[in-house]
């Protein structure tokens, strides 16, 4: 796992990081939210980001698919620079269409689901493959049906989002992201807006996804999920990475004082 190689592209595909962040800074006006994030997410791993509100976890996640522009540093997804193209020592902003092309491969699940309310569950899942990839309607419908079945909602295909519970909506949202066959899934506090009894269903789907080998970056407050399913864990506070490592080690035996006080409150 930890064969430290130099930044040059090694031949073994396993060593290529799915996400690599080098000194990423992000400010909103005068407020600096990310103050230099260095981390690496390996292909196929479940990478959990924890930390108090306002620590920059969600902002960092949104930088990965360029919903937010990075102010300084470099962010790579699958070896490619996010949002920019480097030619020599000059950096060129990517066009909107080029950014969109890269986003196809990165699924995202939001805290507030953000399902399209004017479409049924099935139509929500079909939409992007048809519009973005040009998949035929019949094909998209079949695949969407399979995905809804995978998240346990085959019988809710014809329902509009308002007719679904929060947990069901979030599972549709996961199916919608999976419909684009992403190589990386970003989860932005996927269970924070849910009733406690609905959290389990969503976590089950995510666990299932992790077992299938999907690379996942999960911003979460579910420490149980992080401990059970996570391969790596990072604790962020005040825009920096405070502590990182194996989730079982960090959660049971935190080294940093700030991590200890945070975990003592949430566990």
């Amino acid at each position: 796992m930890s064969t430290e190689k130099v930044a040059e592209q090694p031949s073994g595909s396993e060593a290529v990081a799915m996400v690599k962040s080098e000194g990423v800074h992000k400010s909103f006006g005068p407020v600096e939210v990310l103050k230099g994030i260095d981390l690496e997410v390996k292909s196929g791993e479940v990478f959990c980001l924890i930390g108090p509100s306002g620590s920059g976890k969600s902002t960092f996640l949104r930088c990965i698919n360029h919903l937010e522009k990075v102010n300084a540093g470099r962010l790579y997804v699958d070896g490619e620079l996010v949002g920019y193209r480097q030619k020599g020592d000059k950096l060129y902003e990517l066009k909107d269409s080029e950014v969109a092309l890269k986003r196809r491969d990165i699924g995202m699940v939001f805290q507030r689901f953000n399902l399209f309310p004017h479409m049924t569950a099935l139509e929500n899942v079909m939409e992007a493959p048809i519009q973005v990839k040009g998949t035929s309607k019949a094909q998209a419908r079949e695949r969407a049906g399979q995905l809804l079945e995978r998240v346990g909602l085959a019988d809710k295909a014809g329902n509009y989002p308002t007719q679904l519970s929060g947990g069901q909506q979030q599972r549709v949202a996961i199916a919608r992201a999976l419909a684009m066959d992403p190589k990386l899934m970003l989860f932005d506090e996927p269970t924070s807006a849910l009733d406690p009894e609905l959290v389990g269903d969503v976590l089950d789907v995510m666990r299932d996804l992790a077992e299938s080998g999907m690379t996942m970056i999960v911003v979460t407050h579910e420490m149980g999920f992080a401990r059970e399913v996570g391969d790596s864990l990072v604790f962020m506070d005040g825009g920096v990475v405070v502590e990182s490592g194996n989730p079982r080690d960090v959660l049971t035996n935190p080294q940093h004082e700030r991590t200890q006080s945070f975990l003592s409150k949430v566990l």
Partner: protein
Amino acid sequence: MTVDTDKTTGPADTPPAGPEALKAIPVRHYGRYVSALIAIALFVAIISAFAQGNINWGAVPDYFFDDRIITGVWKTLLLTVLSMLIGIVGGILLAVMRLSKNPVTSTIAWFYIWFFRGTPVLVQLVVWFNLGLVFTYINLGPIYKDYWSSFMTPLLTALLGLGLNEAAYMAEICRAGLLSVDEGQTEASHALGMSHAKTLRRIVIPQAMRVIVPPTGNEVINMLKTTSLVSVVQFYELFRYAQDIGQTSGAPVEMYFLAAAWYLILTSVLSVGQYYIERYYARGSSRSLPATPLQKIKANMLSLGSWRR
């Protein structure tokens, strides 16, 4: 629900071991009876005043389906539809321009709205009509070349005057609609790799319609009535024909009543259409669709029945 149990008076239909329904004497709203009586009396007084006035009512039905009037109705409708089409397409375009990150397009849109909303539509119509003073010819190279006065037909003048003015109003309505859609929708769509244009067309605009349709219905009805202004640019529509008939038939005021009746009929029909369009765009925004007018009438009749008991 209680209607059925009352009629059958048998214990068979009552739910087993359910609590007994309360039987209370409803509050009597005497104010309602009084106000209804006053309203009816006033209505009758106004009607009889008009009926006894020095107006030849017989002229109205005589000309109601006159060929010229019917032509006028069709032209009024045509002008309304075409002007609104220009207005809506232009309005969406201007709203998107106004909200765009591009400072050039947003400034142009701002300026357009400022100008066309800030001057009376009647003045705009007259200006379009007299634009030949500024542009003597219209010259599109090898495609088209003509005198401005023969290019600018009454129909084109009316369409440009009404449509371009309407676009400024529709732009503000559309902008409000687009802004009403949650930002998370755009983010979710972008995160799926959808382009800006597709996000607008497939995700944002369909949801914005729910906010856009009701005021647009208002605009259509307004437009229908505003078309009566285009008689100043020599376009013949319902109002102009009614006026002409009035002058030749010796019943000028009667023809205004006739026109008013036609406008009322047309706006009523449009209101019904608006209701169904609103209902269509409400799908997904609430758990159950609102009732159609027919269903509403049925429900009202039922509640009236129970109220009387």
